[in-house]
């Protein structure tokens, strides 16, 4: 589903620059990994690089999706349009604050990725996810009428609406109270298992990650560089 080797991203310039390194990562279908680390260590930077939003300084190998698209080659060729198309097709993002468009109803927010790709508006997976996250009564409301927890649930459904292969979530529970955070985590994991996706969840809530027994990519801080390695 996703295979990365020898990734190094640099943020900033000169003495303030900070590098983020990921030597190897392989995600198979149905696998969920957590990315943990202190605030500011570069978790988001790593997610942006994996999410094709940031050009890495070095990348030995990056294969994405069931068709094993060679991302490294596209990045080297600066093929931005192809990268953007790949991103919108194969990746789903859950943002820290939901990132729902305030002017669209919950239903339209969820369907927007499908409409953009020209997919059929009716999707079994979406209907199932909406029911599982008990969003059915909220479908015609605007995001501003929803609680933060509800918004994050909508964001989760939107992230999988176009049936991507890989789900990238950036601290999806950060704004939630512990009870709601745990509930969302549960639902997110169910959704991923149900659809057979791979997922990468950035979280600083270690307790939560441990409770669900997720394999972890941990941050190891070095001089001007953070290395992410699987922790056993």
């Amino acid at each position, binding site marked *: 589903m996703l295979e990365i080797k020898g990734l190094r991203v640099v943020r900033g310039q000169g003495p303030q620059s900070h590098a983020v390194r990921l030597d190897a990562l392989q995600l198979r279908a149905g696998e969920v990994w957590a990315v943990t680390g202190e605030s500011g260590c570069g978790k988001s930077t790593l997610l942006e690089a994996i999410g094709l*939003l940031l050009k890495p300084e070095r990348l030995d190998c990056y294969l994405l999706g069931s068709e094993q698209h060679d991302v490294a080659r596209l990045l080297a060729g600066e093929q931005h349009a192809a990268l953007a198309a790949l991103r919108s097709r194969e990746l789903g993002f859950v943002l820290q604050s939901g990132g729902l468009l305030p002017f669209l109803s919950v239903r339209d927010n969820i369907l927007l990725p499908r409409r*953009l790709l020209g997919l059929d508006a009716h999707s079994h997976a979406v209907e199932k996810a909406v029911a599982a996250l008990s969003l059915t009564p909220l479908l015609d409301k605007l995001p501003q009428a929803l609680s933060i927890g509800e918004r994050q649930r909508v964001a989760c459904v939107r992230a999988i609406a176009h049936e991507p292969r890989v789900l990238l979530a950036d601290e999806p529970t950060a704004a939630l109270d512990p009870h709601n955070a745990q509930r969302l985590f549960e639902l997110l994991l169910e959704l991923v298992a149900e659809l057979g996706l791979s997922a990468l969840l950035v979280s600083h809530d270690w307790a939560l990650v441990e409770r669900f027994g997720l394999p972890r990519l941990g941050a190891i801080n070095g001089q001007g560089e953070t290395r992410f390695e699987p922790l056993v």
Partner: protein
Amino acid sequence: MNPWYKRLALLVRLSLADLWHDRNVSLCMAASLVAVIAPLLLLFGLKHGVVSQLQQELLSDPRNLEVKMLSSGHYDQAWLQRLQQRPEVGFAIGQTRSLNTQADLLGERGRFVDNVEVIPTAANDPLLASEFSALQADQLILSERAAQRLEAKVGDSVRLRVSRRLNEVNERGERTLRVQAIVAAVRFARPAAFVSPELLLDLEHYRDGYLVPALGAGSGQSLEAVGVGYARARIYARDIDSVAPLEQWLNQQRIETSSRLAEIDSVKAINHVLGLIFGVIAGAALIGCIASLVGAFLANIDRKRRDLAVLRLLGFTSSAVAVYVVLQALLLSLTGFVGGLACYYLGSLLFDQLLGSSQATGAFICHITVWHGLVALLLALLVAGLVALIGAVRAIRIQPAESLREL
């Protein structure tokens, strides 16, 4: 990927949803456009209405187009033809010496008018503005005054009589003519008979002592050696703008003329002054409008930066986001234009109602044509589109990664 028109339709739907959701701010921006467009349309409507009304008044009176030759001379047929073929000339016809442009008219039951003006006419004569002005030699058109005195109606016969003294003998030439039409007193106030140019020349030749069988004359010199000549011409310019060059052309030939150039010039001056005033006000309004739009659009984009970044993250290209921004500007300016047009309509109704009936101002008209409206719409869209492009340049730089970070 979707075909382009589906993506555009999606963008339009998103733009509309965004504008509607944000309707308070949208309304403010549209209202600021209305505030510029409505007064400009009203001002332009007034300028156009007043000037076109003045011009219409000028045109409705053919005397405003006339260039009068003040003195008599001798002009041959070639000169007249040259005159008629000049681009500035709308209508020109040769006239005889003024002594010979009078005759007596005799109607039925002993009715008669003596010393009626006899005026030549031909097709397209602006003085008559009548379809009957292309006369045969045995037809005439009467002015209302002459017709009243003769109690003549259209279709009646009227006898035209001239007298001369030839070889110590008083003679009378006469010809029976059919009344083709009667000209209203508004167009020509004095008693007059309009005839074909040939008949007028016949009258002159008869008076000059030639043999003119058409008038029943059996004596006099033969006309064979006599060339056609005119003492002056009745000349009308093609339009208001042709009066001055036409007069100049005549003056160059040492022909003294008079015309209503002063009135024409004053209308032109009013047009020029109003145009200048309108231009300056429109320019000032436009600058203010552009400045306020630039500010509003840029602030709007900064406000919506996160949403735009999310759109980028979901897979909208940067050009799609730019189109999104420009679309919103165009939709706003369309709304503003419709509002401005409605305000203009109400304002012009008010003008016409309150000022139109007043005696002092005459018929007061505030008026724009459909073309003016379309040009104004295009201008509004152009300005909004250009201003939005500045915003679009900023929107293009928004990176999808920005949506991942808290701003």
